[in-house]
């Protein structure tokens, strides 16, 4: 059984949270396509369950962004 096999099938109302390796950060993905990183699972769930508030789908070009916007200013 693989990790994918054990999880929820695609096309459903699914929330996914991945603990980023080597960090203390959690990467959250909403079923709507919105994604965001958190350090606190309680705040993470508040955001996920707050859908659609603040759930702007991530633009494709942002996936390869080398640094968070805050570091560029």
């Amino acid at each position, binding site marked *: 059984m693989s*990790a994918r096999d054990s*999880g929820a099938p695609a096309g*459903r109302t699914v929330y996914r949270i991945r603990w980023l390796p080597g960090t203390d950060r959690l990467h959250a993905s909403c079923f709507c396509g919105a994604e965001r990183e958190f350090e606190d699972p309680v705040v993470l*769930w508040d955001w996920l369950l707050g859908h659609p508030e603040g759930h702007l789908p991530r633009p494709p070009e942002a996936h390869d962004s080398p640094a968070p916007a805050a570091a560029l200013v």
Partner: protein
Amino acid sequence: MIVTEFARNQWYVAAYGHEVGRQQLGRTILNEPILLYRTEDGRAVAMADRCVHRRFPLSESPSHLVGDRVVCGYHGFTYGPDGVCVAVPAQQRIPRTARLRSYPVVEQDSFVWVWIGDREPGDTLPPRAPWLTSPDYTTVCGMEPLNARYGLLVDNLLDLSHETYLHGGYIGTPEVAETPITTEVDEDAGIVYVSRHMDDAACPPFYAESTGIKGRITRWQDIEYRPPCLYLLHSRVAPVGSPPPAPDGTDEHAFHVEVVYAITPSTENSTYDFWAVARDFALDDEKVSDFLRDSNRTVVLQDVTALNTLEQVIAAQPDRYQELSVNIDTGGLAARRLLARMAAQGDSVPSQAAAR
């Protein structure tokens, strides 16, 4: 906060099939005393465990079965397997209200499930744990009473990092607590998945002695929690360097253990902790069965001791006690939310329709 409310209109495991026979069995589920027994043709039945007359428990001696009927040991009120009173002592007339509440029963995968709710289950069936009766697996099982609210056991099972600290020497190794998890929640089906895949881990005695693996292992823990009652841990262990599962799903180089828990609330601060361990190796080896049964029961009792203590601590504190959740709790928080929603709605998840 830990969920304390009960989710009604749901299926709950009341007993193993082998516990229900021609002697009455009493279980309290969601505060409802329930009598279980088998009719002469082998059908498991469930009804209220209180005589309508003076509330004497029908599961308690000298209450007894006569054929398919149960006779109250206090004054002799007699009930059929549908709960209807068929005899009242010393009179011909049977009051219209002389009827025990009966409960829908489904017997599957070695469990006797009862429906606790205010409406009928309709097409809703209990979730499956097919390994427990599969000829391709050998299963050991048990049940330990827990003097703690059921939410504490849900918390415990959704975060397996505690294995490292509470179950060292049995199933815990440092890698369990050190390895990040992934969490998924299927809102449509009401299922929480938590996965922890360890690429290179020490092999704990539980697996070393049962599988014969000498060195380090690849260890996968894939949790599938179908609230409120059924918890599945799909466990895969293989020597480091073994091939991964084939695309067709076959996985002949690994050992598989399906660890199944049924979490059945009894009262606000007591829970039935049903546990089963099904393996796809050493199927006929009694020594392996004995070892896994003893080891897993020890592990469960370690949890019971810890959670009984925790219950005392929490019960002594004000309603809004403080706690702190961190990354390892991501799945447990999801489970709490689903349970709270189910309790609030008294609604049922489409468990059978969602089965894959």
